[in-house]
């Protein structure tokens, strides 16, 4: 494997987090949600719009950087960037911001993601537009959509079935991820499923969406927005909250990579793109899996949480089910996962709400407080990204 010394670790920090409420019907435009989230994040960081000189979002976000800048009254932008591949972009927006800050291209960069994903365009439905996109992605989609495989749940279910077949994992093994997420969400007042834990039996009796995935293997669909303020670790020290220092930030795409349908590789048991992310996170931070106190693992569908635990080295291939059954991902376990409730329990904001949770863990303000270092991942099944954040003591 190729390892290059990175000069990024420790240079930048997340100094502010902000969010709208998480709902099923926001009742307002996506632009309004985006601006509300950015305003909240700036207030949290003790900064104003005129401090901002960079904006980063997802390619999929419908709110242009210039529209957000106009509404906020940002007079001057020197950096704006967008990351492709759906939820795989989440941690990469922070990486973009950190690189801009570390190189002096910008001083304060805000990463944002806002949508009416439940009341507006729902990603869980079959997207005729994605299938007909006049791009190489549209051509790629032609090998799955016309054949009847056309939703993210179905795409993941194809991997999950093979994973079950080879490793002997069961639906209950997937279900334990949802049970843990909902248990964590139950004590998070901002979670949609606050006060609503589930049992493994609830999971098993929930209806099929795409076998082998039950309804409760699938994350919710949400309206809302999240924003993160990234600035230099130096400047962050003088801001109100303890900075969440970016100890590592990486993107990854694997061999023969497709969007959700990388079915043509040797096996369907792993997420090579996540291993590429993980290898960089360990190399940049100098940390090992044993050093990580808690993780925010992208949980649009439960099976890929198991695969991520394996690809990131928290357990061996095929061993995640035992790791999870032993209680490792719950509070008090070896590696509490998704302490905010994840996208299964808190909200589906394309992974950005998970980064905010990592910052709360560093600040000591999570509803399920564990501490750092925290590893965060972005969308799975797609080219993806990851972060490790630590307190200011580690560099």
């Amino acid at each position, binding site marked *: 494997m190729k390892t290059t010394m990175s000069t990024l670790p420790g240079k930048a920090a997340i100094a502010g987090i902000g969010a709208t409420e998480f709902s099923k019907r926001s009742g307002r435009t996506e632009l309004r949600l985006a601006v509300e989230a950015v305003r909240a994040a700036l207030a949290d960081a003790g900064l104003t719009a005129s401090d901002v000189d960079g904006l980063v979002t997802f390619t999929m976000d419908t709110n242009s950087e210039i529209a957000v800048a106009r509404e906020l009254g940002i007079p001057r932008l020197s950096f704006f960037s967008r990351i492709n591949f759906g939820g795989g972009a989440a941690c990469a927006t922070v990486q973009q911001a950190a690189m801009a800050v570390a190189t002096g291209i910008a001083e304060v960069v805000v990463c944002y993601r806002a949508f009416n994903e439940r009341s507006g365009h729902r990603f*869980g439905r079959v997207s005729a537009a994605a299938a007909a996109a006049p791009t190489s992605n549209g051509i790629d989609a032609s090998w799955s959509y*016309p*054949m009847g495989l056309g939703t993210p749940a179905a795409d993941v279910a*194809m991997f999950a079935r093979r994973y079950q077949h080879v490793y002997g994992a069961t639906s209950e093994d997937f279900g334990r991820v949802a049970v843990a997420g909902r248990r964590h969400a139950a004590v998070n007042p901002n979670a949609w499923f606050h006060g609503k834990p589930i049992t493994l039996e609830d999971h098993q009796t929930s209806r099929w969406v795409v076998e082998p995935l039950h309804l409760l293997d699938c994350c919710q669909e949400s309206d809302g927005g999240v924003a993160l303020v990234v600035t230099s670790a130096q400047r962050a020290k003088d801001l109100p909250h303890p900075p969440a220092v970016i100890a590592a930030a990486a993107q990854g795409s694997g061999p023969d990579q497709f969007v959700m349908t990388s079915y043509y590789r040797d096996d*369907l048991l792993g997420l090579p793109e996540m291993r590429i992310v993980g290898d960089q996170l360990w190399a940049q931070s100098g940390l090992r899996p044993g050093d990580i106190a808690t993780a925010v693992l992208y949980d649009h569908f439960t099976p890929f949480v198991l695969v991520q635990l394996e690809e990131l080295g928290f357990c061996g291939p095929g061993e995640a089910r035992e790791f999870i059954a032993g209680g490792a991902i719950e509070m008090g376990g070896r590696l509490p996962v998704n302490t905010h409730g994840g996208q299964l329990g808190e909200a589906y904001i394309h992974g950005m709400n998970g980064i905010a949770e990592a910052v709360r863990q560093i600040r000591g303000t999570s509803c399920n407080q564990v501490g750092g270092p925290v590893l965060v991942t972005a969308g799975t099944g797609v080219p993806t990204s990851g972060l490790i954040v630590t307190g200011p003591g580690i560099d």
Partner: protein
Amino acid sequence: MNSIEAEAGRLKALGESEPRLARDPVNEPMINNWVEALGDRNPAYPKFAPPAMVQVWTMYGLNGVRDADDPLGAMSKVLDAAGFTSVVATNCEQTYHRYLRPGEQLAVTTRLSDVVGPKRTALGEGWFVTTVSTWYVDDEPVAEMMFRVLKFRPPEPSGSVLRPLVNQDTEFFWQGTAKRELRIQRCPDCRRLRHPPGPFCPVCGSATPEYVLASGRGSIFSYVVHHHPPIPGKRLPVVIALVELEEGVRMLGELPDVPPDEVWIGQEVVVDWSRVDSELTLPVWRARHD
């Protein structure tokens, strides 16, 4: 709906169909075969016939043709014409008045008892059709059967199949499916096979890909059963299989004829063709039984 109810009323008013004679009288060889197949060692047989055999005596046989005045057949035609084309039996209750003995000659009549609907069911909107059959020996009724079916409208797939985007790099594949040929891209230089195809060979860089014809045979590498949400042009639930062709490449396709709980990884399949319209033919998989 009116025409369904009117037709039901007319058929009910016709009452019992003409008696139809059993092909053979009640007989010991048939009783022996039946009790042997069912493992019924009751010593009363074959001196008497098992009561549950009553329907056996008046079956149409392999090449039988339903009587023109059979009310279930007539009512089914009416419902078929109204789009309620699928059928599932829901209830069957038999009443026996006495044992039958070898040598007795049975006849059966059927009347339409009830047609109730339209009802929303898990299978789709439909009508419950109830008939009552009576078996006679001469003028003596010896057994009756209430038989109920649901004739339902299979849920229509919403929209039409999503069409592939086709360009110069991929048109060979779709031109192939139109001719019922499964084509796999092959590099002319390093001979590597590849699916999905692209303009270059990722191994040796050749820019002039060719194709070979696949045998169409392969085995299921993984599969899903899609229940929710709707897929344009597909009737749910639908099985979508990722098949590893014997040439070594993998390909997705629907597996339309195998019930979801009878699909397994490793199952042998062969390609077949689903013609959507004059522009588009999709490959699908069929289970292979050779």
